[in-house]
């Protein structure tokens, strides 16, 4: 238990210098790759999004249904409502390799997808 606490504390402090990067980030904003995700008939197209590891990605979501939907993912820590016939943007990553499921909270039975990080 003590080791876990110590390691966590170490990681926390290691991250503190990153705070100094906040103002710099505004200047050196590299081009973020963009991918498209569509919602139609309460389904995601494509249902599998492949993105590279350790890279921030901009997901542009088009909701082609007349009903609103909420993009939600516990694994990605993301949650956002998209109005019916609307468009929105969500930034994710940089992520480690692995699978990160997401779903539409308003129609969770059908609206299911996964981000695969390679």
């Amino acid at each position, binding site marked *: 238990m003590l080791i876990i606490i110590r390691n*966590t504390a170490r*990681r*926390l402090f290691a*991250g*503190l210098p*990153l*705070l100094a*990067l*906040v103002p710099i*980030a505004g200047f050196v904003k590299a081009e*973020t790759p963009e991918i498209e995700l569509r919602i139609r008939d309460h389904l995601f197209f494509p249902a599998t999004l492949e993105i590279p590891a350790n890279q*921030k990605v*901009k997901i*542009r979501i088009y909701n082609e249904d*007349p*009903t*609103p939907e*909420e993009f939600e993912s*516990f*694994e990605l*820590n*993301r949650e*956002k*409502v*998209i*109005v*019916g016939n*609307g*468009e*929105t*943007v*969500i*930034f994710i*990553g*940089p992520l480690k390799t692995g699978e990160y499921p997401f779903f539409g*909270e*308003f*129609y*969770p*039975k059908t609206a299911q997808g996964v981000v695969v990080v390679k």
Partner: protein
Amino acid sequence: MFLNAVVIVLQEILEAALMLSLLLAFVRYFNLVNGGAALLRRDWVLLSIVFGILLAWIYSHNFSRISDSFDYVGLEITNASIHTVSCACLVSLAWLFPVKKSDAYSSNRLFGLILCMVAVVVLAILREGSEIMQFGGGILGQGEAGLPIFYGGVVGAGIGVSTGVLLYYALTGLSIDGSLKACVLLLALTAGNMASQAILLLNQADWLPFTPTAWDTSALLGESSVLGQLAYALIGYEATPSILQVVAYLLGLIVVLASPVSRLAWVGWRKQAV
């Protein structure tokens, strides 16, 4: 759709209900300690709820416009602002809470306290209510079988409010000192939660830089589990918070724990300061 509506409305109502219960427990503590000589009123509660619902309705009606603003991250920016102001109000509440008898009669201080509480409740309802309206309005407007959704919403709201009532009685059922300790601790955790949520939203909007995940407790307590959801609503539990989120959470926590009311709860200033 019934169960789905239960879950969605419950999630949203729960946060606002728990917040209100915590504030009411503070009011009760104040009134008990001062023996009715100085009274914190409760008549702001109903007004805040009505005002919150009205603001949520306005938000909901301008949802598309807000969502499209700031290059499609308007929702994140608006909600991060709401969380930041909520956090500031919770912190102010801790610092304004009278610990000396003489302060308990200061009408300026009491007015400030009530103002903070009103703001916290209004903003919680604005935040959560607008999402419920999006869900309900969007689906009902399409003429789908609306009744199960409506009943689901009523059940969800019922469970949410009941949980809030339960928290209130849990907080006020303790001894008077224990009650203050629990209230201050929850207030600190809630302030931390608000700060951390604001950071998360700004990250999602790419307005703040990425920081690595501080830890991963998803194997211990999953965010999607019932307990995980309750912990999320109550203290902002997240299985994989980023380092920046943890820093913000700790800052919110510490600023509340450094307040006079926190010292009163643990050191017992009251005894010497009458």
